[in-house]
Protein backbone atom coordinates (compact mmCIF):
# COMPACT_ATOMS: atom_id res chain seq x y z
CA UNK A 1 0.00 0.00 0.00
CA UNK A 2 1.27 3.48 -0.77
CA UNK A 3 1.80 6.27 1.72
CA UNK A 4 -1.13 8.47 2.66
CA UNK A 5 0.86 10.65 5.06
CA UNK A 6 4.67 10.83 5.15
CA UNK A 7 6.59 12.32 8.07
CA UNK A 8 10.21 13.28 7.50
CA UNK A 9 12.06 14.65 10.51
CA UNK A 10 8.82 16.32 11.45
CA UNK A 11 9.15 18.63 14.44
CA UNK A 12 6.08 20.53 15.60
CA UNK A 13 5.84 22.73 18.64
CA UNK A 14 5.16 26.00 20.32
CA UNK A 15 7.57 28.79 21.32
CA UNK A 16 10.62 26.84 20.15
CA UNK A 17 9.72 23.86 22.37
CA UNK A 18 8.95 20.72 20.40
CA UNK A 19 5.70 18.88 21.10
CA UNK A 20 6.47 16.33 18.37
CA UNK A 21 10.19 15.81 17.90
CA UNK A 22 11.78 14.43 14.71
CA UNK A 23 9.08 12.04 13.66
CA UNK A 24 9.82 9.83 10.68
CA UNK A 25 7.46 7.33 9.18
CA UNK A 26 4.49 6.67 7.01
CA UNK A 27 0.78 6.26 7.55
CA UNK A 28 -0.23 3.88 4.81
CA UNK A 29 -3.35 4.21 2.71
CA UNK A 30 -6.22 2.23 4.12
CA UNK A 31 -4.60 1.76 7.55
CA UNK A 32 -6.38 2.14 10.87
CA UNK A 33 -4.01 3.57 13.48
CA UNK A 34 -4.54 4.43 17.12
CA UNK A 35 -2.47 7.36 18.34
CA UNK A 36 -1.64 6.69 21.98
CA UNK A 37 0.28 8.62 24.61
CA UNK A 38 0.02 10.60 27.82
CA UNK A 39 -1.48 14.07 27.99
CA UNK A 40 0.98 16.49 26.48
CA UNK A 41 2.76 13.80 24.48
CA UNK A 42 2.07 15.51 21.15
CA UNK A 43 -0.94 13.59 19.82
CA UNK A 44 -3.20 16.58 19.11
CA UNK A 45 -0.22 18.57 17.87
CA UNK A 46 0.57 15.83 15.37
CA UNK A 47 -3.06 15.86 14.19
CA UNK A 48 -2.88 19.63 13.67
CA UNK A 49 0.37 19.18 11.78
CA UNK A 50 -1.25 16.68 9.41
CA UNK A 51 -4.26 18.95 8.85
CA UNK A 52 -1.91 21.87 8.18
CA UNK A 53 -3.18 24.01 11.07
CA UNK A 54 0.33 24.05 12.53
CA UNK A 55 3.45 24.68 10.46
CA UNK A 56 6.47 22.43 11.13
CA UNK A 57 9.47 23.85 13.01
CA UNK A 58 11.61 21.39 11.11
CA UNK A 59 11.10 18.59 8.61
CA UNK A 60 7.83 18.09 6.82
CA UNK A 61 4.56 16.24 6.81
CA UNK A 62 3.37 15.34 3.34
CA UNK A 63 -0.20 14.29 2.67
CA UNK A 64 -0.55 12.36 -0.61
CA UNK A 65 -1.93 14.54 -3.43
CA UNK A 66 -5.65 14.24 -3.97
CA UNK A 67 -6.31 13.20 -0.38
CA UNK A 68 -9.64 14.43 0.97
CA UNK A 69 -9.21 15.02 4.67
CA UNK A 70 -11.75 15.07 7.48
CA UNK A 71 -10.68 16.23 10.94
CA UNK A 72 -12.57 16.05 14.20
CA UNK A 73 -10.62 18.11 16.75
CA UNK A 74 -10.47 17.34 20.46
CA UNK A 75 -11.49 20.81 21.45
CA UNK A 76 -14.05 21.78 18.92
CA UNK A 77 -14.51 25.48 18.30
CA UNK A 78 -18.14 24.72 17.56
CA UNK A 79 -20.39 27.53 18.82
CA UNK A 80 -23.37 25.69 20.23
CA UNK A 81 -25.29 28.89 20.81
CA UNK A 82 -25.31 29.57 17.06
CA UNK A 83 -28.85 29.24 15.68
CA UNK A 84 -28.27 26.06 13.69
CA UNK A 85 -30.11 22.75 13.46
CA UNK A 86 -28.52 19.31 13.38
CA UNK A 87 -29.08 19.17 9.63
CA UNK A 88 -27.23 22.49 9.19
CA UNK A 89 -24.26 21.21 11.20
CA UNK A 90 -24.07 17.92 9.29
CA UNK A 91 -24.52 19.74 5.95
CA UNK A 92 -21.26 21.61 6.60
CA UNK A 93 -19.70 18.29 5.55
CA UNK A 94 -20.85 19.04 2.00
CA UNK A 95 -18.23 21.79 1.77
CA UNK A 96 -15.53 19.65 0.06
CA UNK A 97 -18.11 18.66 -2.58
CA UNK A 98 -19.98 21.91 -3.11
CA UNK A 99 -17.64 24.59 -1.80
CA UNK A 100 -18.74 28.17 -1.43
CA UNK A 101 -21.27 28.47 -4.21
CA UNK A 102 -22.15 24.98 -5.44
CA UNK A 103 -25.85 24.24 -5.42
CA UNK A 104 -27.03 21.71 -2.84
CA UNK A 105 -28.55 18.90 -4.90
CA UNK A 106 -31.12 16.27 -3.98
CA UNK A 107 -28.35 13.64 -3.71
CA UNK A 108 -26.57 15.87 -1.18
CA UNK A 109 -29.67 16.04 0.99
CA UNK A 110 -29.91 12.28 0.67
CA UNK A 111 -26.28 11.89 1.77
CA UNK A 112 -26.99 14.02 4.86
CA UNK A 113 -30.10 11.98 5.66
CA UNK A 114 -28.18 8.70 5.23
CA UNK A 115 -25.37 9.96 7.47
CA UNK A 116 -27.83 10.94 10.19
CA UNK A 117 -29.44 7.54 9.93
CA UNK A 118 -26.04 5.81 10.09
CA UNK A 119 -25.25 7.50 13.42
CA UNK A 120 -28.72 6.80 14.80
CA UNK A 121 -30.00 10.37 14.66
CA UNK A 122 -33.03 10.01 12.41
CA UNK A 123 -35.68 12.46 13.51
CA UNK A 124 -33.09 14.87 14.92
CA UNK A 125 -32.77 16.87 11.69
CA UNK A 126 -34.56 19.95 12.96
CA UNK A 127 -33.29 19.87 16.54
CA UNK A 128 -31.35 23.03 17.48
CA UNK A 129 -27.76 22.06 18.26
CA UNK A 130 -27.91 23.74 21.68
CA UNK A 131 -30.42 21.09 22.81
CA UNK A 132 -28.20 18.08 22.03
CA UNK A 133 -26.53 15.93 24.67
CA UNK A 134 -22.78 15.36 24.50
CA UNK A 135 -23.23 11.97 22.86
CA UNK A 136 -25.78 13.27 20.35
CA UNK A 137 -23.46 16.10 19.39
CA UNK A 138 -20.59 13.64 18.87
CA UNK A 139 -22.86 11.49 16.70
CA UNK A 140 -23.75 14.59 14.67
CA UNK A 141 -20.05 15.37 14.18
CA UNK A 142 -19.43 11.77 13.03
CA UNK A 143 -22.34 12.23 10.60
CA UNK A 144 -20.57 15.31 9.27
CA UNK A 145 -17.39 13.26 8.76
CA UNK A 146 -19.51 10.68 6.90
CA UNK A 147 -20.90 13.39 4.62
CA UNK A 148 -17.39 14.70 3.95
CA UNK A 149 -16.65 11.34 2.30
CA UNK A 150 -12.95 11.78 3.10
CA UNK A 151 -10.24 9.19 2.45
CA UNK A 152 -8.10 10.40 5.36
CA UNK A 153 -10.04 10.67 8.62
CA UNK A 154 -8.41 12.13 11.75
CA UNK A 155 -10.34 11.83 15.01
CA UNK A 156 -8.85 13.46 18.11
CA UNK A 157 -10.15 11.80 21.29
CA UNK A 158 -13.62 11.13 19.86
CA UNK A 159 -14.64 8.94 22.80
CA UNK A 160 -14.13 11.48 25.59
CA UNK A 161 -17.11 11.70 27.93
CA UNK A 162 -19.15 9.44 25.69
CA UNK A 163 -21.26 6.55 27.01
CA UNK A 164 -20.49 2.90 26.22
CA UNK A 165 -23.26 2.39 23.69
CA UNK A 166 -22.30 5.50 21.73
CA UNK A 167 -18.62 4.45 21.81
CA UNK A 168 -19.60 1.04 20.43
CA UNK A 169 -21.65 2.65 17.64
CA UNK A 170 -18.84 5.05 16.76
CA UNK A 171 -16.30 2.19 16.74
CA UNK A 172 -18.55 0.37 14.26
CA UNK A 173 -18.45 3.43 12.01
CA UNK A 174 -14.65 3.60 12.27
CA UNK A 175 -14.44 -0.08 11.32
CA UNK A 176 -16.75 0.56 8.39
CA UNK A 177 -14.43 3.33 7.18
CA UNK A 178 -11.49 0.95 7.55
CA UNK A 179 -13.28 -1.73 5.53
CA UNK A 180 -13.92 0.88 2.83
CA UNK A 181 -10.11 1.31 2.59
CA UNK A 182 -10.14 4.80 4.04
CA UNK A 183 -7.13 5.84 6.14
CA UNK A 184 -8.15 6.47 9.74
CA UNK A 185 -6.11 7.83 12.65
CA UNK A 186 -7.76 7.99 16.07
CA UNK A 187 -6.37 9.46 19.28
CA UNK A 188 -7.51 7.20 22.11
CA UNK A 189 -6.64 6.67 25.77
CA UNK A 190 -8.39 3.37 26.47
CA UNK A 191 -5.72 0.75 25.75
CA UNK A 192 -8.18 -2.16 25.94
CA UNK A 193 -10.34 -0.52 23.35
CA UNK A 194 -7.30 0.11 21.17
CA UNK A 195 -6.10 -3.48 21.45
CA UNK A 196 -9.54 -4.80 20.68
CA UNK A 197 -10.33 -2.71 17.64
CA UNK A 198 -7.19 -1.20 16.13
CA UNK A 199 -4.65 -3.14 14.04
CA UNK A 200 -1.87 -0.55 14.46
CA UNK A 201 -0.76 1.98 17.04
CA UNK A 202 1.68 4.84 17.27
CA UNK A 203 2.84 5.34 20.85
CA UNK A 204 3.98 8.91 21.23
CA UNK A 205 5.95 10.62 24.01
CA UNK A 206 7.03 13.74 22.15
CA UNK A 207 9.19 11.31 20.19
CA UNK A 208 7.78 8.09 18.80
CA UNK A 209 8.26 5.31 21.37
CA UNK A 210 6.81 2.58 19.18
CA UNK A 211 4.89 2.33 15.96
CA UNK A 212 3.54 -0.82 14.43
CA UNK A 213 1.17 -3.69 15.10
CA UNK A 214 -0.85 -2.83 18.12
CA UNK A 215 0.22 -5.72 20.41
CA UNK A 216 3.89 -4.96 19.71
CA UNK A 217 3.62 -1.22 19.95
CA UNK A 218 1.71 -1.37 23.23
CA UNK A 219 4.03 -3.87 24.92
CA UNK A 220 4.64 -3.38 28.65
CA UNK A 221 8.19 -2.19 27.99
CA UNK A 222 7.06 0.41 25.51
CA UNK A 223 4.25 1.58 27.75
CA UNK A 224 6.70 1.88 30.64
CA UNK A 225 9.07 3.91 28.49
CA UNK A 226 6.21 6.15 27.38
CA UNK A 227 5.09 6.66 30.97
CA UNK A 228 8.51 7.92 31.96
CA UNK A 229 8.03 10.75 29.53
CA UNK A 230 8.08 14.12 31.22
CA UNK A 231 5.68 16.46 29.52
CA UNK A 232 6.93 19.72 31.02
CA UNK A 233 9.02 22.02 28.89
CA UNK A 234 12.57 22.48 29.98
CA UNK A 235 13.46 26.16 29.67
CA UNK A 236 17.14 25.23 29.92
CA UNK A 237 17.03 22.37 27.45
CA UNK A 238 19.90 22.55 24.98
CA UNK A 239 19.10 23.54 21.41
CA UNK A 240 18.52 20.60 19.13
CA UNK A 241 21.37 20.59 16.64
CA UNK A 242 20.99 17.40 14.70
CA UNK A 243 17.66 17.25 12.90
CA UNK A 244 16.63 13.69 12.39
CA UNK A 245 19.25 12.28 14.69
CA UNK A 246 17.10 11.78 17.75
CA UNK A 247 14.52 9.11 17.15
CA UNK A 248 13.16 7.21 14.21
CA UNK A 249 10.45 4.77 13.56
CA UNK A 250 11.22 2.57 10.61
CA UNK A 251 9.31 2.87 7.39
CA UNK A 252 9.57 -0.77 6.52
CA UNK A 253 8.81 -2.53 9.76
CA UNK A 254 7.14 0.42 11.37
CA UNK A 255 8.06 -1.09 14.73
CA UNK A 256 10.29 0.28 17.43
CA UNK A 257 11.37 -1.59 20.56
CA UNK A 258 8.80 -4.27 20.00
CA UNK A 259 10.27 -7.15 21.89
CA UNK A 260 7.35 -8.40 23.87
CA UNK A 261 3.87 -9.55 23.05
CA UNK A 262 2.68 -9.42 26.61
CA UNK A 263 -0.39 -7.33 27.23
CA UNK A 264 -0.74 -4.71 29.86
CA UNK A 265 -4.09 -3.40 30.95
CA UNK A 266 -4.66 0.24 31.58
CA UNK A 267 -5.06 3.48 29.83
CA UNK A 268 -3.36 6.74 29.11
Amino acid sequence: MSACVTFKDLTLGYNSHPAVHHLNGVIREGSLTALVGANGSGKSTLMKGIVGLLKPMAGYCKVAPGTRLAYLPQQSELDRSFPARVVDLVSLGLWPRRGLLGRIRPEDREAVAKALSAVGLEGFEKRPIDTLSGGQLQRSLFARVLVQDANLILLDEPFNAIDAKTVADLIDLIKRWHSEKRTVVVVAHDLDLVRQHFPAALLLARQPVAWGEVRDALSPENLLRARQFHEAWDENAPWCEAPGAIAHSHHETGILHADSHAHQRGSF
Partner: protein
Amino acid sequence: MIALYDLLVAPFAEFAFMQRALLGAILLSISACPVGVFLMLRRMSLTGDAMAHAILPGAAAGFLLYGLQIVPMTIGGLIAGMMVALGAGAVARLTIQKEDASMAAFYLISLSLGVLMVSLRGSSVDLMHVLFGTVLALNNAALTLIGLVAATTLIALFVFWRALVAECLDPLFLRSVSRLGSPVHFIFLGLVVINLVAGFQALGTLLSVGLMILPAAAARFWTQRTEFMCLLAIGLGMLSSVSGLLLSYHLSLPSGPAIILSAGVAYSVSVLGGTRGLLFTRRPRTAHRTA
Protein backbone atom coordinates in the same frame (compact mmCIF):
# COMPACT_ATOMS: atom_id res chain seq x y z
CA MET B 1 -59.05 57.98 8.26
CA ILE B 2 -57.83 61.41 7.21
CA ALA B 3 -56.16 61.81 10.58
CA LEU B 4 -54.35 58.54 10.00
CA TYR B 5 -53.27 59.70 6.55
CA ASP B 6 -51.98 62.97 8.01
CA LEU B 7 -50.18 61.09 10.71
CA LEU B 8 -48.52 58.35 8.69
CA VAL B 9 -48.50 59.14 4.98
CA ALA B 10 -48.69 62.88 4.48
CA PRO B 11 -45.19 63.69 5.79
CA PHE B 12 -43.67 61.34 3.24
CA ALA B 13 -46.09 62.25 0.43
CA GLU B 14 -45.66 65.98 0.77
CA PHE B 15 -41.99 66.54 1.53
CA ALA B 16 -39.12 65.51 -0.70
CA PHE B 17 -36.63 65.62 2.18
CA MET B 18 -38.77 63.08 4.06
CA GLN B 19 -38.88 60.82 1.00
CA ARG B 20 -35.11 60.96 0.68
CA ALA B 21 -34.71 60.29 4.38
CA LEU B 22 -37.07 57.32 4.11
CA LEU B 23 -35.27 55.91 1.07
CA GLY B 24 -31.89 56.29 2.79
CA ALA B 25 -33.06 54.70 6.02
CA ILE B 26 -34.74 51.78 4.23
CA LEU B 27 -31.66 51.11 2.12
CA LEU B 28 -29.55 51.23 5.27
CA SER B 29 -31.89 48.76 6.98
CA ILE B 30 -31.65 46.30 4.07
CA SER B 31 -27.89 46.54 4.15
CA ALA B 32 -26.81 47.02 7.77
CA CYS B 33 -29.33 44.80 9.60
CA PRO B 34 -28.14 41.42 8.22
CA VAL B 35 -24.54 42.50 8.86
CA GLY B 36 -25.65 43.22 12.42
CA VAL B 37 -27.09 39.70 12.73
CA PHE B 38 -23.69 38.20 11.95
CA LEU B 39 -21.94 40.69 14.26
CA MET B 40 -24.24 39.57 17.05
CA LEU B 41 -23.91 35.84 16.29
CA ARG B 42 -20.12 36.21 16.29
CA ARG B 43 -20.38 37.93 19.69
CA MET B 44 -18.93 41.05 18.12
CA SER B 45 -21.79 43.45 18.81
CA LEU B 46 -19.51 45.82 20.68
CA THR B 47 -16.95 45.54 17.90
CA GLY B 48 -19.50 47.35 15.74
CA ASP B 49 -19.52 50.14 18.27
CA ALA B 50 -15.72 50.24 18.35
CA MET B 51 -15.57 50.35 14.55
CA ALA B 52 -18.04 53.23 14.53
CA HIS B 53 -15.65 55.22 16.69
CA ALA B 54 -12.73 54.10 14.57
CA ILE B 55 -13.97 55.78 11.38
CA LEU B 56 -14.10 59.18 13.09
CA PRO B 57 -10.55 60.42 12.32
CA GLY B 58 -10.92 59.57 8.63
CA ALA B 59 -14.23 61.38 8.38
CA ALA B 60 -12.76 64.27 10.36
CA ALA B 61 -9.74 64.48 8.06
CA GLY B 62 -12.04 64.64 5.03
CA PHE B 63 -14.11 67.28 6.75
CA LEU B 64 -11.08 69.38 7.72
CA LEU B 65 -9.68 69.31 4.21
CA TYR B 66 -12.85 69.65 2.14
CA GLY B 67 -15.63 70.74 4.52
CA LEU B 68 -18.99 68.97 4.68
CA GLN B 69 -18.49 66.94 1.49
CA ILE B 70 -19.71 63.37 1.34
CA VAL B 71 -17.02 61.91 -0.92
CA PRO B 72 -13.87 62.95 1.00
CA MET B 73 -15.49 62.24 4.37
CA THR B 74 -16.56 58.81 3.17
CA ILE B 75 -13.19 57.94 1.71
CA GLY B 76 -11.51 59.13 4.92
CA GLY B 77 -13.88 57.08 7.05
CA LEU B 78 -13.33 54.02 4.88
CA ILE B 79 -9.54 54.29 5.13
CA ALA B 80 -9.60 54.80 8.91
CA GLY B 81 -12.11 51.97 9.43
CA MET B 82 -10.21 49.54 7.22
CA MET B 83 -6.92 50.36 8.94
CA VAL B 84 -8.40 49.69 12.35
CA ALA B 85 -10.16 46.51 11.19
CA LEU B 86 -7.05 45.14 9.50
CA GLY B 87 -4.71 46.22 12.30
CA ALA B 88 -6.85 44.80 15.09
CA GLY B 89 -7.58 41.64 13.08
CA ALA B 90 -3.90 41.13 12.30
CA VAL B 91 -2.82 41.57 15.92
CA ALA B 92 -5.52 39.10 16.99
CA ARG B 93 -4.50 36.49 14.42
CA LEU B 94 -0.73 36.86 14.66
CA THR B 95 -0.17 37.41 18.38
CA ILE B 96 -1.45 36.03 21.68
CA GLN B 97 -3.88 38.94 22.07
CA LYS B 98 -7.57 38.33 21.40
CA GLU B 99 -9.58 40.55 19.10
CA ASP B 100 -11.57 42.31 21.84
CA ALA B 101 -8.41 43.79 23.33
CA SER B 102 -6.68 44.64 20.04
CA MET B 103 -9.88 46.20 18.69
CA ALA B 104 -10.27 48.31 21.84
CA ALA B 105 -6.65 49.49 21.57
CA PHE B 106 -6.91 50.43 17.90
CA TYR B 107 -10.27 52.17 18.13
CA LEU B 108 -9.26 54.23 21.16
CA ILE B 109 -6.18 55.48 19.34
CA SER B 110 -8.32 56.22 16.31
CA LEU B 111 -11.05 57.97 18.30
CA SER B 112 -8.65 60.24 20.14
CA LEU B 113 -7.01 61.16 16.83
CA GLY B 114 -10.44 61.99 15.41
CA VAL B 115 -11.49 64.18 18.33
CA LEU B 116 -8.11 65.92 18.20
CA MET B 117 -8.53 66.69 14.49
CA VAL B 118 -12.09 67.99 14.79
CA SER B 119 -11.22 70.19 17.78
CA LEU B 120 -8.20 71.62 15.96
CA ARG B 121 -10.32 73.34 13.35
CA GLY B 122 -13.97 72.56 13.65
CA SER B 123 -16.69 74.05 15.78
CA SER B 124 -18.93 72.07 18.10
CA VAL B 125 -21.68 72.22 15.45
CA ASP B 126 -19.39 70.40 13.03
CA LEU B 127 -18.56 67.82 15.66
CA MET B 128 -22.26 67.30 16.34
CA HIS B 129 -22.84 66.73 12.63
CA VAL B 130 -20.13 64.09 12.36
CA LEU B 131 -21.20 62.41 15.58
CA PHE B 132 -24.97 62.46 15.05
CA GLY B 133 -25.59 62.87 11.30
CA THR B 134 -28.54 64.43 9.54
CA VAL B 135 -30.86 61.93 7.93
CA LEU B 136 -33.19 64.77 6.93
CA ALA B 137 -30.48 66.35 4.78
CA LEU B 138 -29.40 63.41 2.63
CA ASN B 139 -28.32 64.67 -0.79
CA ASN B 140 -28.01 62.72 -4.02
CA ALA B 141 -24.38 61.83 -3.41
CA ALA B 142 -25.21 60.41 0.03
CA LEU B 143 -28.15 58.40 -1.31
CA THR B 144 -26.01 57.03 -4.16
CA LEU B 145 -23.36 56.00 -1.66
CA ILE B 146 -25.90 54.26 0.57
CA GLY B 147 -27.35 52.49 -2.49
CA LEU B 148 -23.93 51.31 -3.61
CA VAL B 149 -23.07 50.06 -0.14
CA ALA B 150 -26.39 48.23 0.11
CA ALA B 151 -25.83 46.53 -3.27
CA THR B 152 -22.25 45.56 -2.37
CA THR B 153 -23.34 44.21 1.00
CA LEU B 154 -26.19 42.12 -0.39
CA ILE B 155 -24.00 40.64 -3.14
CA ALA B 156 -21.19 39.87 -0.65
CA LEU B 157 -23.63 38.27 1.80
CA PHE B 158 -25.14 36.17 -0.98
CA VAL B 159 -21.75 35.00 -2.27
CA PHE B 160 -20.12 34.38 1.12
CA TRP B 161 -23.18 33.24 3.07
CA ARG B 162 -22.05 29.63 3.41
CA ALA B 163 -18.54 30.62 4.52
CA LEU B 164 -19.87 33.20 6.98
CA VAL B 165 -22.17 30.66 8.58
CA ALA B 166 -19.40 28.04 8.73
CA GLU B 167 -16.92 30.57 10.17
CA CYS B 168 -19.43 31.47 12.90
CA LEU B 169 -20.63 27.94 13.62
CA ASP B 170 -17.34 26.02 13.53
CA PRO B 171 -14.29 28.07 12.51
CA LEU B 172 -11.85 25.19 13.03
CA PHE B 173 -13.88 23.03 10.66
CA LEU B 174 -13.79 25.72 7.99
CA ARG B 175 -10.02 26.00 8.38
CA SER B 176 -9.68 22.23 7.95
CA VAL B 177 -11.58 22.18 4.64
CA SER B 178 -10.93 25.60 3.14
CA ARG B 179 -8.57 28.54 3.12
CA LEU B 180 -11.46 30.98 3.23
CA GLY B 181 -11.52 31.29 7.04
CA SER B 182 -9.31 34.36 7.41
CA PRO B 183 -10.35 36.10 4.17
CA VAL B 184 -14.04 35.78 5.01
CA HIS B 185 -13.42 37.31 8.44
CA PHE B 186 -11.77 40.34 6.88
CA ILE B 187 -14.43 40.60 4.16
CA PHE B 188 -16.98 40.66 6.94
CA LEU B 189 -15.12 43.38 8.86
CA GLY B 190 -15.00 45.30 5.54
CA LEU B 191 -18.80 45.02 5.27
CA VAL B 192 -19.13 46.36 8.81
CA VAL B 193 -16.93 49.34 7.93
CA ILE B 194 -18.70 50.28 4.66
CA ASN B 195 -22.09 50.02 6.33
CA LEU B 196 -21.01 52.25 9.20
CA VAL B 197 -19.59 54.75 6.73
CA ALA B 198 -22.83 54.65 4.75
CA GLY B 199 -24.77 55.13 7.95
CA PHE B 200 -22.83 58.02 9.42
CA GLN B 201 -24.15 60.62 6.95
CA ALA B 202 -27.65 59.74 8.04
CA LEU B 203 -27.23 58.77 11.67
CA GLY B 204 -23.76 59.95 12.64
CA THR B 205 -20.75 57.87 13.61
CA LEU B 206 -22.10 57.20 17.08
CA LEU B 207 -25.57 56.02 16.14
CA SER B 208 -25.05 54.34 12.76
CA VAL B 209 -24.17 51.16 14.64
CA GLY B 210 -27.58 51.32 16.34
CA LEU B 211 -29.45 50.43 13.17
CA MET B 212 -27.02 47.56 12.72
CA ILE B 213 -27.25 46.01 16.17
CA LEU B 214 -30.65 46.76 17.71
CA PRO B 215 -32.89 45.14 15.04
CA ALA B 216 -30.53 42.13 14.93
CA ALA B 217 -30.54 41.77 18.71
CA ALA B 218 -34.35 42.03 18.67
CA ALA B 219 -34.72 39.42 15.92
CA ARG B 220 -32.70 36.91 17.99
CA PHE B 221 -35.69 36.62 20.35
CA TRP B 222 -38.07 35.45 17.63
CA THR B 223 -36.36 32.81 15.51
CA GLN B 224 -33.74 30.06 15.55
CA ARG B 225 -32.82 30.30 11.86
CA THR B 226 -30.11 32.66 10.65
CA GLU B 227 -31.79 33.49 7.35
CA PHE B 228 -35.12 34.33 9.00
CA MET B 229 -33.25 36.34 11.61
CA CYS B 230 -31.71 38.48 8.87
CA LEU B 231 -35.08 39.04 7.17
CA LEU B 232 -36.77 39.87 10.46
CA ALA B 233 -33.96 42.27 11.39
CA ILE B 234 -34.40 44.06 8.05
CA GLY B 235 -38.15 44.31 8.69
CA LEU B 236 -37.62 45.68 12.19
CA GLY B 237 -35.01 48.10 10.88
CA MET B 238 -37.43 49.45 8.27
CA LEU B 239 -40.22 49.73 10.82
CA SER B 240 -37.94 51.63 13.18
CA SER B 241 -36.86 53.92 10.34
CA VAL B 242 -40.44 54.81 9.41
CA SER B 243 -41.59 55.32 12.98
CA GLY B 244 -38.44 57.25 13.88
CA LEU B 245 -38.86 59.61 10.95
CA LEU B 246 -42.54 60.16 11.76
CA LEU B 247 -41.73 60.84 15.40
CA SER B 248 -39.03 63.23 14.31
CA TYR B 249 -41.45 65.02 11.95
CA HIS B 250 -44.42 65.32 14.29
CA LEU B 251 -42.59 65.99 17.56
CA SER B 252 -39.63 67.94 16.12
CA LEU B 253 -37.14 65.42 17.50
CA PRO B 254 -33.67 64.87 16.04
CA SER B 255 -34.19 62.12 13.45
CA GLY B 256 -31.18 59.88 14.15
CA PRO B 257 -31.87 59.27 17.84
CA ALA B 258 -35.61 58.93 17.06
CA ILE B 259 -34.90 56.07 14.61
CA ILE B 260 -32.51 54.30 16.99
CA LEU B 261 -34.88 54.75 19.94
CA SER B 262 -37.66 53.20 17.86
CA ALA B 263 -35.36 50.24 17.27
CA GLY B 264 -34.76 50.25 21.02
CA VAL B 265 -38.49 49.89 21.61
CA ALA B 266 -38.58 46.95 19.17
CA TYR B 267 -35.70 45.42 21.12
CA SER B 268 -37.39 45.90 24.52
CA VAL B 269 -40.64 44.39 23.26
CA SER B 270 -38.72 41.42 21.83
CA VAL B 271 -36.75 40.80 25.01
CA LEU B 272 -40.01 40.58 26.91
CA GLY B 273 -42.52 39.19 24.44
CA GLY B 274 -40.48 37.31 21.82
CA THR B 275 -41.07 33.60 21.40
CA ARG B 276 -37.60 33.12 22.89
CA GLY B 277 -37.94 36.12 25.18
CA LEU B 278 -38.26 36.47 28.93
CA LEU B 279 -41.99 35.89 29.37
CA PHE B 280 -42.13 32.73 27.27
CA THR B 281 -38.97 31.04 28.43
CA ARG B 282 -39.17 31.96 32.12
CA ARG B 283 -42.82 31.30 32.81
CA PRO B 284 -43.27 28.49 35.33
CA ARG B 285 -44.20 25.23 33.62
CA THR B 286 -45.55 22.28 35.50
CA ALA B 287 -47.11 20.45 32.56
CA HIS B 288 -44.53 18.26 30.87
CA ARG B 289 -44.36 15.42 28.40
CA THR B 290 -43.32 11.88 29.21
CA ALA B 291 -40.35 11.94 26.81
